[in-house]
């Protein structure tokens, strides 16, 4: 499906264009392209064909089992004019992205800062904290989430200990189901955390020392040194996590048994796309949805890059 293709590829912090290219740089570029070659090969041999096919299907009425018939823009029009479930899936997905991405990044940064204080056995801790992310996308974890946040789940038993006996069944109540999935996302903070940690370890200690000599407190040092110097890393994580959050599928699929329920409260965009394409035999419509998702993600990513000028500081600025 078009939208499942990683629109991001690799995000490389843009370098300001320097003057003429030296010979050495050209050599480096060649090597760069050489390393990219396998990816290009995959794109042209495996991905491009299906992508173009799905673009064609998006203008057709295609039920998977009989030949597609051309309907022009009908699918795209229907999406925005007469499909309340589509609008619901957009709403759910936007709420999910808006909540889960900032929370996940903040949490990842917090843990990274705590881990960066030169504790012993750092490697072990790092591995432990990274574990949920390794498991995160997995079906097993989503099933566990069902158990934890269900009516008699672990979470409610814990609340009962605190005296709240009549807590709702979080995953099967329309008002709260989506937030359990946001929480699941935040819990998988491992990969941004590891990247943050790498960034933190590159900030020269002298800067902190100098600031301390000048009388800067802890908070001030964090806000004036750590954050500004970390902005490229924050940006990198933000772009990546945003794309991933838009494409989230597995947790909602498992937790709601594939329905996006209760009452469509966890109907993620990708889940609705899957239902329409594979369960309801509207593959043309699903393909159109996929391309719209690609546009949405593309728009957000582009906006991210445009805005990055105003808040991301690269150390080699003005070099």
């Amino acid at each position, binding site marked *: 499906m078009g939208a499942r293709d990683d629109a991001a590829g690799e995000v490389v912090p843009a370098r300001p264009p320097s003057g003429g290219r030296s010979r050495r740089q050209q050599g480096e570029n060649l090597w760069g392209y050489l390393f990219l070659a396998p990816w290009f090969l995959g794109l042209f041999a495996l991905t491009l064909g299906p992508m173009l096919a799905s673009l064609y299907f998006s203008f057709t009425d295609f039920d998977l089992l009989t030949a597609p018939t051309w309907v022009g823009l009908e699918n795209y029009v229907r999406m925005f004019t007469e499909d309340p479930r589509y609008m619901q899936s957009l709403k759910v997905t936007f709420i999910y992205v808006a909540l889960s991405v900032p929370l996940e990044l903040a949490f990842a940064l917090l843990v990274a800062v705590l881990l960066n204080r030169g504790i012993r056995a750092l490697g072990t801790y790092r591995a432990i904290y990274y574990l949920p992310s390794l498991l995160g996308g997995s079906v097993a974890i989503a099933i566990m989430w069902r158990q934890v946040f269900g009516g008699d789940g672990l979470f409610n038993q814990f609340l009962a200990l605190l005296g709240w006996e009549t807590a709702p069944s979080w995953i*099967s109540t329309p008002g709260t189901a989506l937030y359990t999935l946001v929480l699941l996302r935040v819990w998988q903070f491992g990969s941004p955390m590891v990247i943050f940690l790498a960034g933190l370890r590159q900030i020269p200690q002298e800067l902190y020392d100098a600031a301390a000599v000048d009388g800067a407190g802890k908070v001030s040092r964090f806000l004036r040194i750590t954050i500004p110097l970390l902005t490229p890393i924050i940006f990198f994580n933000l772009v990546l996590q945003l794309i991933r959050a838009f494409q989230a599928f597995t947790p909602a699929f498992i937790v709601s048994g594939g*329905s*996006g329920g209760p*009452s469509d409260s966890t109907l993620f965009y990708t889940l609705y796309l899957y239902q329409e394409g594979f*369960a309801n035999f509207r593959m043309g419509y699903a393909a159109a949805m996929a391309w719209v998702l690609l546009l949405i993600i593309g728009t957000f990513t582009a906006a991210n890059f445009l805005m990055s000028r105003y808040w991301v500081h690269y150390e080699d600025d003005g070099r």
Partner: protein
Amino acid sequence: MSGIGGTGGLRRGHTRADFLRVGGGAVAGALAMGLVGCGGGDSAGGTRLRMTWWGEQGRHRRTQEALRVFEKKNPGVEIATELSGGDGYFEKLVTQATGGNAPDVFQSEPNQFAELSQRGGILLELDRFVPDLLSVEGWPEETLDLDRVGGKLLGVPLGLNSFMFIYDAAAFQKAGVREADEGWTWEDFERITTDVGRSSGGEYFGTEDTGGDGYVLEVWVRQRGRELFTEDGRLGFEKSDLADWWEFWDRLRESGAAVPAEVQALSTGDVTDTPLVTGKAAAEFDFSNRLIAFSGLVDKGLGHNVIPNGPSGSRYGMYLRPALTMCAYSRTEYPEEATKVMNALVNVPDVARPLGTERGVPPSPEIREFLLPDMEEMEREIVAYVERVAEEQVPMTIQRPVNVGEVLADTGSLLERTSQDIAFGRTSIDEGVDRFFEEAGRILS
């Protein structure tokens, strides 16, 4: 021979036996869309069939065993099985069929069968193999009716089932409920489940909430003299039928007889997370053959009864249906062998034995007789139950339309979603009914 060849079936005058004895030359192009199989498997080289179904562990075990017996009896035929749970099974199958590599033999149920058979070109037509490779001798006529589309036989029913009310016997006893008889009505049902819910001390509710369940709704609608669908694939019941139905369940939720919305929403169609199995409700509606799966999952005694009847004088709502249907892929390389396998599952005693009645009561009276001595008590009860329904039933002859799953059969169907919205108080019953009819009309058009 009963009714094979019906109307418009592609029957050939000659038996196919002599044709096949030649060693399976190319099968003449009687297949839809000109998808011609490549003839019978070469007996010397061996035939490798792919087969898939969904189910729980118990069903996998039984089926594997049956297939092993088949392989012993048919040297040279090897069956590669692809096991699956119910989740995603159908989506995967459709995708494989689209890509031209579906398994040779696969299991489906009535709603899936409706989709596969009416979208054309996926299912192998079986009429030409009857009776040489596939025997339907003595089967009740209506069993085959539902596996026939446009006069063509497109599947083999593995077993018959009907709907069933299944309950926790101890909980009912505790509430002092006397065993309801088969003449019980929806009114009795309401009274009983309310009592059971009350007597539980808040531990469980009287019944699950089937406001979003198309099968039980179907019985309700039929009792009122109507059908879920018309012959031409539209809704066959009235707004008032659905409004009464949802009002009934609303009342049961109010009184604590039925589980609240958030509990019902935890049930996603898998037998393992139904309210009866998770201990949230003392009763539940399901298919008769699933009683076996249920009893394996709970350590309490289960009783069963018919679905409650309408008020006296109303029509009998339940009917027999092919619980599960085996189909062969139209593009299989081995149409004869695929048919042989399906035939063995329902007609060859030693192969059918391991299956028992787990997929429903076998359609062949001979196999039924053959299996009886080995049956456990519960299986006997199910057979007796199905036979009683057979006597009472008004047979169902209407094939379900395409998109039936989306309207009222899938997890997350329009019916289930709307019922959920009402239960959570997000929409009124009248609004829900209007919305259902409007959207169902659009989906079915």
